[in-house]
């Protein structure tokens, strides 16, 4: 049993807003849902499967299903942090392959910018029933210093430098200048990144992603439906997911869950990393990108610093064009969750709908990679491989 070729992404929509103080989270979910349906050429009445994650208001899928007034025969509210939407595209394909639904809607939305959330630099409140909570709460773990510990170890173990990490931001900013909706549209240099204030050693402010309001949605459909719609055919051919954690106190922080979800997705798709023409790589921080690129097999473990340097991630310049929308580092990180925009830009590339300045030529195979939650403790990873038919 495989999902290869069993479902297509027929609709994709990224909300243009980056700041929505006058809208509710539910309204943003509804706007992106309708945007993706319009993109696919379908209507709300066609939706029989709904997929959402922890950003959807209320517990699970119930509140949003009601707000949208959907009539459903399949639901899935798997919460994998920012990687959820990469995984949910695979879950939708699996549900369609099993005949559980025909038209799957996946939504993401949130407004951390309007709500003034100190996303990365203040410890998050935890449920006291989380078994690790009491053993970590005293130590001031934040999103930023958790990822920073991974970067520090990677530098120690492999000689990676701040300048190499900076190239990841430079490439993202080079792409963002062509995106009229990007939050940070100005190109930056390596010197700009390493000269920006330290947040948590060794990560600087420009190593961190933006905090934005907004959202996005996807429509995943059965092959028979996809062929009737007048849209380019973007086929799901491989998916993998996992959780990586601290393994009882014996762990390696230089490796991510992509080392498991990636090979699983490549095996299902029957292709290798060298076949990929475009990659959306989750970019909560520069170090997130570097570690995932290694774990996905685009280069040897530890060689990521050299691989990303000198513009190798810039479309039209380097070997692995990545995040051509500007990514979370420069464009958008709605609801503090970047997985949805990763899939959306991969769909744009496969359709040939990316900005002409960043469109990859003959882009027939693309990958979307998500890492959700905390790379420095426990995180979820999802990999999705897509093919233009």
């Amino acid at each position, binding site marked *: 049993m495989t999902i290869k070729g069993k479902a297509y992404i027929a609709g994709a929509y990224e909300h243009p807003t980056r700041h929505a103080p006058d809208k509710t989270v539910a309204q943003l979910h509804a706007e992106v849902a309708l945007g993706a349906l319009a993109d696919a050429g379908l209507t709300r009445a066609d939706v029989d499967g709904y997929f959402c994650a922890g950003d959807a208001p209320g517990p699970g899928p119930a509140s949003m299903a009601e707000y949208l007034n959907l009539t459903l025969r399949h639901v899935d509210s798997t919460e994998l942090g920012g990687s959820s939407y990469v995984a949910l595209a695979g879950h939708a394909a699996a549900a369609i392959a099993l005949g559980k639904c025909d038209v799957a809607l996946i939504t993401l939305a949130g407004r951390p910018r309007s709500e003034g959330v100190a996303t990365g*630099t203040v*410890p998050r*409140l*935890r449920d*006291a029933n989380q*078994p*690790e*909570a*009491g*053993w*970590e*709460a*005293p*130590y*001031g*773990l*934040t999103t*930023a*210093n*958790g990822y*920073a*510990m*991974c*970067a*520090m*170890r990677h530098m*120690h173990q492999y000689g990676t430098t701040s300048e190499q990490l900076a190239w990841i931001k430079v490439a993202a900013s080079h792409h963002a200048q062509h995106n009229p909706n990007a939050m940070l549209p100005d190109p930056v240099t390596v010197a700009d990144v390493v000269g920006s*204030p*330290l*947040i*948590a*050693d*060794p*990560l600087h402010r420009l190593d961190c992603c933006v905090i934005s309001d907004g959202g996005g949605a996807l429509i995943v459909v059965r092959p028979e439906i996809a062929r009737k719609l007048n849209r380019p055919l973007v086929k799901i051919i491989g998916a993998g997911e996992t959780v990586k954690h*601290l*393994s*009882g*106190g*014996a*762990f390696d*922080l230089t490796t991510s869950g992509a080392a498991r979800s990636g090979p699983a997705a490549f095996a299902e798709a029957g292709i290798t990393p060298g076949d990929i023409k475009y990659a959306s790589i989750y970019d909560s921080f520069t170090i997130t990108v570097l570690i995932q690129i290694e774990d996905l097999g685009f280069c040897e473990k530890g060689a990521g610093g050299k691989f990303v340097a000198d513009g190798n991630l810039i479309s039209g310049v380097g070997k692995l064009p990545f995040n051509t929308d500007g990514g979370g580092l420069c464009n958008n990180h709605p609801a503090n969750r970047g997985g949805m925009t990763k899939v959306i830009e991969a769909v744009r590339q496969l359709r040939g709908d990316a900005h002409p300045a960043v469109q990859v030529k003959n882009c027939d195979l693309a990958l979307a990679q998500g890492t959700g939650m905390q790379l420095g*403790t426990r995180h979820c990873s999802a990999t999705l491989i897509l093919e233009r038919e």
Partner: protein
Amino acid sequence: MKRKIPAPVPLPFPPPQAGQGWVGTFWDAARKGRLVVPVCTACGKAHWYPRAICPFCDSDTIEWRDTLGKGTIYTFSVMRRAKEPYVIAYVKLAEGPTMMTNIVDCDFDALRIGDAVTVVFEETEAGPPVPMFKPV
């Protein structure tokens, strides 16, 4: 000024009390300045964070054993974007497991991965003292 250290269990949940259940033994030891770790008597392995069930062999025969209170820094980060900068770290204990902690009582800029450290117990806002480490 020193950073206020939150209690090990987030408030308003009651912090662990002396003698309260299996985990109380850890905090009893902490109050006396001893770092103990959970060791499985079935497979002999120490683990972290502490669980009532061994993550390696599934046995529930876990007992607390004293450590030397010594280890090395596996990784760390100085949190600059805070009222009072502080160092979060993972320390690999001599007994095996690697634990999240803070490095204190030192020049943050002189810290290096691999540095030898020794345990110190720091008072928290409303709970028992928690293990942290300082360079040897």
